[in-house]
């Protein structure tokens, strides 16, 4: 599926509102991301970027609005989501259990094995996540988001702590996924990334505008 493919957008959000007490963080947000698009979401600290992604992922409820994600989904949250006493391989095994229609084996599939090599996580498979570096933990979070072979991918500052080589691999992986038809929405603060995006959006005052 390509960007120009007909049919509804893979990520669709209409009139989404979310408040914390009296503070309205999202105020009628409309958003559509089509298959094959890499859409960057920027905005000031506290502008609601992460809240929008958390609402999309169902981590948080919403006051009003419509949210639809079409297809297999992956999410890399901003917060640490790893169990410190489980190993890298055990996290992937758990993610394997979450794959729709995937096998039940504890071994990563060929695609995941290639990603582990690409992100230099293969030597750390047997290590508990409490004992690996922050960058390695971030890589594992990213790979957990890729585990379902997603058609919709939500990334919240997913490259935080990556070294330069990994940062390059991160964008190369996103470009490959987009070519395969994955719709990607990522929170990004860096303006020099604009060239890697299909388009950029800015969130301000609880609403979204083209960046």
């Amino acid at each position: 599926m390509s960007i120009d493919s007909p049919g509804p957008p893979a990520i669709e959000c209409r009139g989404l509102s979310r408040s914390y007490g009296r503070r309205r963080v999202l105020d009628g947000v409309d958003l559509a991301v089509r298959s094959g698009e890499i859409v960057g979401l920027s905005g000031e600290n506290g502008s609601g970027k992460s809240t929008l992604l958390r609402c999309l992922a169902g981590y948080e409820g919403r006051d009003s609005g419509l949210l639809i994600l079409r297809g297999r989904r992956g999410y890399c949250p901003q917060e640490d989501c790893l169990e410190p006493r489980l190993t890298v391989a055990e996290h992937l095994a758990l993610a394997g259990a979450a794959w729709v229609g995937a096998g039940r084996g504890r071994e990563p599939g060929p695609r995941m094995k290639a990603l582990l090599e690409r992100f230099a996580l293969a030597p750390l498979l047997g290590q508990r996540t409490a004992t690996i570096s922050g960058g390695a933990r971030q890589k594992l979070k990213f790979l957990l988001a890729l585990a379902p072979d997603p058609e919709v991918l939500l990334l919240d500052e997913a490259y935080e702590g990556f070294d330069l080589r990994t940062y390059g691999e991160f964008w190369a992986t996103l470009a490959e996924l987009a070519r395969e038809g994955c719709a990607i929405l990522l929170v990004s603060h860096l303006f020099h990334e604009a060239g890697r995006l299909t388009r950029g959006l800015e969130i301000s005052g609880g609403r979204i505008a083209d960046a």
Partner: protein
Amino acid sequence: MPEAFRLALLSLLRDRFALALLVIAPTVFLGVTWLTAPLMLIPISFFGLPGIDELPLRQREVLVAFISSSVGGFLSAFLASEILSDRRDLGKLLIFSGLPAARWAGARLLAALTVAGGVALWTFALEAALIPLRNPAATLLGALLLALVYGLFGATVGLLARDTLRSVLCILILADVDAAWLQNPVYYTYAQENEIVHRLPAFHPIQETLAGAFAGRFNFEALVGSLAYAALLCLPLLLALAWRYGPVEISRARSRRESRGGRGPRP
């Protein structure tokens, strides 16, 4: 589900603090009780046992039975809360990625109740080593029922509180007030006569333990009462699960529905 169950247990087994607590707490509490409690006889009432209303029992034996129950109840609740707490929301991530919430929650709950059962076996073994039990099977049944009731309570607390300190406080208050104090006629003389005390969660399981340990009988009324209490506790547990995982499960289910027909299955 087998993977989530296996890894929930494995994660707990790797928790040195939990393991140390599991070994040290019952050993110390029961050891101190056995060493310090007097041997004088006191009358203990039994409920739901036809033909037996009261028996004179050694204070030390009664206290060992009660302390065994209260420490077992506390540990069951605490470990269940640790397993269910999912502090980092890994469960939400997996459910978002396609794992049905029922499978995740079911695996975690099963792991918590398995651990609670293990705690009951362990405290029962210590109890059996310290005092003579007239009917070990019925005594063990009482320990298992208490582990079930307190395990369900702990699981709910873990889901709602998430923070260890708050969970421990909630569980300690219940275990201390209910199993260790209010149910215990050695510490609280009026416990046996008070209707409110009879409505607390530890009452029926402890009656099963007492009936087995000292009367040598199964207490059917206590079994039914314990199971009814456990069933009742399932309601707040289900509500807590719905609160934690409901929105992400609804999102997953909607996405599945929306993708039908439009996109192919996972390659």
